[in-house]
């Protein structure tokens, strides 16, 4: 194929209109579509997938996330002074690591478990979800702290995806509620922060990048926040870990006996950086309109295993799938790094 096939012809008027256009820095999550689209994609990917049961479990979990987000109760929000003082020092206004969480999130966690259980009739995860019905408030807060501070020690791996799911709804609601209360033409509660590799709303790491097809005709790369689902812009062909633009390659999966000289056009690739040896997946809407960063990240675990075998370290965070400590002693090659 030639390049011209993918490039639309623009009229002189369109060129004039686009001339002064800026790249939208962020796309805040959409209450109606975020979890709905993710669930749809998870079900789509689950068909015939070797990890079918797990993807269906994730789909049920996402379904409940969607339901809870639609009627989220009122929670304490920061005032405009707090938002402005965060903006002045270019910090995210809702930092995940030391945010005073509204107790309401625990109520929502309990509703999540309650609503999820009937949906897991034959699912292998049912037993471990049942155990979470009587987790104490203290234990829940402790698990949340460990998750948000990325502490492996003492983290309950069976509880983590559900605790994370409840935190995701809470943070997504925070972002949306703040936008609804304060956002107007003169004041935007969220903006650029000093760390371009962290979410401008909550400071978390991305799950994956998404190359979006926007209605305005833009085709920009955004990083998708693992916690609050905000997407923020970062130029293409740039490492989302060390911001290097050198030595960036794109790895995709190919059946083992495929010919090597066939150009890869995969919709999900791992963007690897030779400077810092990290990688982040990128999902490309221009190659598949249906891609969703979190769902497609879960569905391409094989790509993670292959890229990790090739020596790259994962930079993306997917709170639904966390890796535990391998049974062998620590890897001596892992002592360096930033």
């Amino acid at each position, binding site marked *: 194929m030639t390049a011209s096939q993918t*490039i639309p012809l623009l009229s002189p008027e369109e060129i004039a209109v686009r001339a002064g256009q800026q790249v939208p820095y962020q796309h805040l999550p959409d209450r109606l579509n975020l979890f709905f689209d993710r669930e749809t994609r998870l079900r789509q990917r689950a068909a015939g997938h070797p990890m079918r049961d797990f993807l269906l479990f994730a789909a049920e979990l996402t379904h409940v996330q969607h339901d809870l987000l639609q009627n989220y109760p009122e929670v304490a929000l920061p005032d405009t002074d707090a938002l402005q003082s965060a903006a002045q020092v270019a910090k995210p206004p809702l930092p995940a690591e030391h945010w005073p969480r509204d107790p309401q999130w625990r109520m929502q966690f309990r509703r999540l478990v309650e609503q999820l259980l009937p949906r897991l009739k034959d699912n292998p995860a049912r037993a471990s979800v049942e155990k979470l019905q009587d987790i104490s408030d203290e234990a829940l807060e402790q698990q949340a702290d460990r998750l948000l501070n990325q502490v492996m020690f003492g983290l309950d791996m069976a509880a983590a995806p559900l605790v994370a799911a409840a935190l995701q709804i809470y943070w997504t609601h925070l972002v949306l509620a703040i936008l609804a209360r304060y956002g107007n033409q003169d004041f935007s509660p969220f903006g650029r922060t000093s760390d371009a590799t962290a979410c401008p709303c909550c400071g978390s790491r991305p799950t994956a990048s998404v190359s979006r097809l926007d209605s305005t005709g*833009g085709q920009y790369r955004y990083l998708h926040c693992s916690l609050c689902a905000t997407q923020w812009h970062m130029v293409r062909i740039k490492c989302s870990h060390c911001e290097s633009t050198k030595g960036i390659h794109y790895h995709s999966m190919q059946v083992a006996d495929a010919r090597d000289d066939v150009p890869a056009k995969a919709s999900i690739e791992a963007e690897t950086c030779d400077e810092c040896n990290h990688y982040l997946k990128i999902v490309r809407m221009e190659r598949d309109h249906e891609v969703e960063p979190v769902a497609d990240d879960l569905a391409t675990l094989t790509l993670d295993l292959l890229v990790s075998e090739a020596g790259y370290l994962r930079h993306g965070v997917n709170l639904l799938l966390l890796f535990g400590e391998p049974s062998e002693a620590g890897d001596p090659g892992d002592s360096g790094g930033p």
Partner: protein
Amino acid sequence: MEMNRRQFFKVTGAGLSTSTLVALGFSPAPALAETRSFKLAKATETRNTCPYCSVGCGIIMYSVGDKAKNVKSEIFHIEGDPDHPVNRGTLCPKGAGLLDFVHSPNRLKYPQVREAGSKEWKRISWDEAMTRIAKLMKEDRDANFVAKNADGKTVNRWTTTGMLCASASSNETGYITHKVMRSMGMLVFDNQARV
């Protein structure tokens, strides 16, 4: 703490057996088995500037293979760079045809000369080409250099030879072109290829 944090994200086949996937009650075996039927394909995206005109549109070139020996590397797709402030991902028809330009069998790959009165292009070496150009330039400059104008003012100009340079040059290339040519008194040169 730092150890813990790194472990949090580390992907290994062994780590999968203690992951949330297994803790929830799922089997890691199908995922691990699947890795055996796949391998990695590597592609590279490279930013560059369209060589056609002085607008200087940003382009992204997609290639397979790497520059290592024994590996065939080939550009298979070129498109406008959406992040580039000049063209925002768009290209003109000439720019959109760049892939054919790269792979064109008629692409000039070495110096050639067509002698006066001849119809044939003849291939010559880079050394021959350089010597020949230098000689011709010197001859012309010796014959036509204007040191002073009619009023006796020093002008040091050489207007009988000109040079056309590429449009997709960096600032630094432009600076060097300017220094080299101006120091010989050459006035007629352009960094444009409106052709």
